[in-house]
């Protein structure tokens, strides 16, 4: 395994009066594609929100390259290089694609690096360039997803978290989105991916982690998961 970039130790977190993560231990490797799978409502999104600081840690530690994240505010976590592309995109609906992308680079003050990143995002997701002046509230599902990912990339972070990037999209659009994700990974980005459909990332993921009731119940490679049909069946109903 590559050297770790993100590490969780016994993390507990949740919402008012409801603990969701109940002691999660987890490591993601630098430059790797790490996948988190698990049934609905078992805390996958909460895991990402906890890492990005939107949900507070009540016990345990989160660190990025050895630096504690769990004591930081969400904006400070972003400044450390963590990008969170949330489930359901959460675009700014009244802003254009261009303004959404600029919000992604909110913490970057040098105009030069912003322009450079914009160029890279437009190369990776050319559709965004064509539609740069369209208001986000009027985009199709696939365009919204691309805008969400593009906006995340504008931050220029080194650890990218994607929450169910295939959710609600047609198969052909899902393929396009995953092509982009795999490209990013081959370009050396560290990616944490939440995906319901394990088969989709089986071949590409460096490690797969199964989240069950707020704890990691199983960790391994895609091939190992395939060899354990009972796990797939029990947790994912495939």
């Amino acid at each position, binding site marked *: 395994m590559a050297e770790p970039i993100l590490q969780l130790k016994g993390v507990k977190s949740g919402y*008012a009066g409801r603990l969701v993560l109940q002691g999660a231990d987890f490591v993601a490797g630098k430059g790797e594609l790490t996948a988190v799978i698990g049934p609905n409502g078992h805390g996958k999104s909460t895991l990402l929100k906890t890492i*990005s*600081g*939107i949900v507070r840690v009540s016990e345990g530690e989160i660190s990025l390259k050895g630096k504690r994240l769990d004591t930081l*505010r*969400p*904006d400070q976590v*972003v*400044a450390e290089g963590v990008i*969170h592309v*949330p*489930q*359901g*995109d*959460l*675009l*700014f*609906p*009244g*802003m254009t694609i261009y*303004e959404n992308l*600029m*919000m*992604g680079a*909110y*913490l970057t003050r040098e105009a030069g690096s912003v322009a450079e990143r914009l160029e890279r995002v437009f190369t990776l997701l050319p559709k965004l360039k064509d539609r740069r002046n369209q208001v986000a509230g009027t985009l199709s599902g696939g365009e919204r997803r691309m805008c969400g990912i593009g*906006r995340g990339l504008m*931050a220029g972070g080194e650890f990218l978290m994607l929450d169910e990037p295939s*959710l*609600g999209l047609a198969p052909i659009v899902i393929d396009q989105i995953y092509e982009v994700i795999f490209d990013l990974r081959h370009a050396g980005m560290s990616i944490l991916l939440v995906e319901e459909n394990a088969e989709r990332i089986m071949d590409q993921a460096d490690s797969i982690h199964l989240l069950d009731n707020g704890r990691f119940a199983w960790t391994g490679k895609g091939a190992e998961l395939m060899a354990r049909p009972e796990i797939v069946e029990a947790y994912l109903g495939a």
Partner: protein
Amino acid sequence: MDVVIQIIASGLTLGAMYAVATVGLSLVYGSLNMLNMAHGALLTLGGYMCYAAITHLGFHPIFGLVAAALVCALAGLAIYVFATLPLLRAENFETNIFIATIGIGAVIESLMLKSFGPYPIPQPLAVSGSVVIGNVHIPLQNIMILLTALVAMAAVALLLQKTRAGRAIRATSMSRDAAQLMGVRVGQIYAQVLALSGGLAAISGVMISSIATLTPVMGGDPMLKAFIICIVAGLGNVYGAVLAAIVLGLLEAATQYVLGVRWSFATLLLLVILVLIWRPYGLFGRQQVVRL
């Protein structure tokens, strides 16, 4: 014809004052989901501060206005630090802050009553003279108000549309979580918005008191109208609020002329009821966002 000019002139003046009062309220609601019931008291505070700066401290009228705006911006900041911030940490923020700001408003109004007394005081920031259009004399004061409001609105629009801070304010009002994920420190945004709203309240308070008079309760009526305008426009929609303010100002001037002053508020309320039956989210209100 003269009547129409008269109605348009006073309607635009009313609308301009309402617009400045409403924008602050709308910004605060849009970004924090906070109904600031102390907004009217901030208006009053602004009016008295301008008066005090000019009369007691000998400020030039322009600086009197600026001083009033600064004091009220600080008051807005204080509301953030001492009421919004602690209440945000607990549950039921929207109800709690509603009640808390009623209390803050009452305190400010009592302070004004104690310091300046219950009797109406004229606002010294006033210009005399008038221009004549047709056979109608339009006081320069009204034109001043219109211009001041235009400048204030243009400045707010420029801030919201063209600056980094403004974009962050808009982003926060569209999705607080997403704004945080972009690295926006939302606490700072809230503080800025409350300060800005306080400053705008001061400007509007000075304008209103310059055609009426200063009294400790002068903020109540414009605040009520600002709320009505906000609701008609759709809570939190800043540009819609400006438009609605001007339309309602014109409408008020027209009803005052046609039906008499005592009908103007009733007409306003009737209109609100009709609008809300037709469009429950307000004229420009956000549709419910479809979430996956």
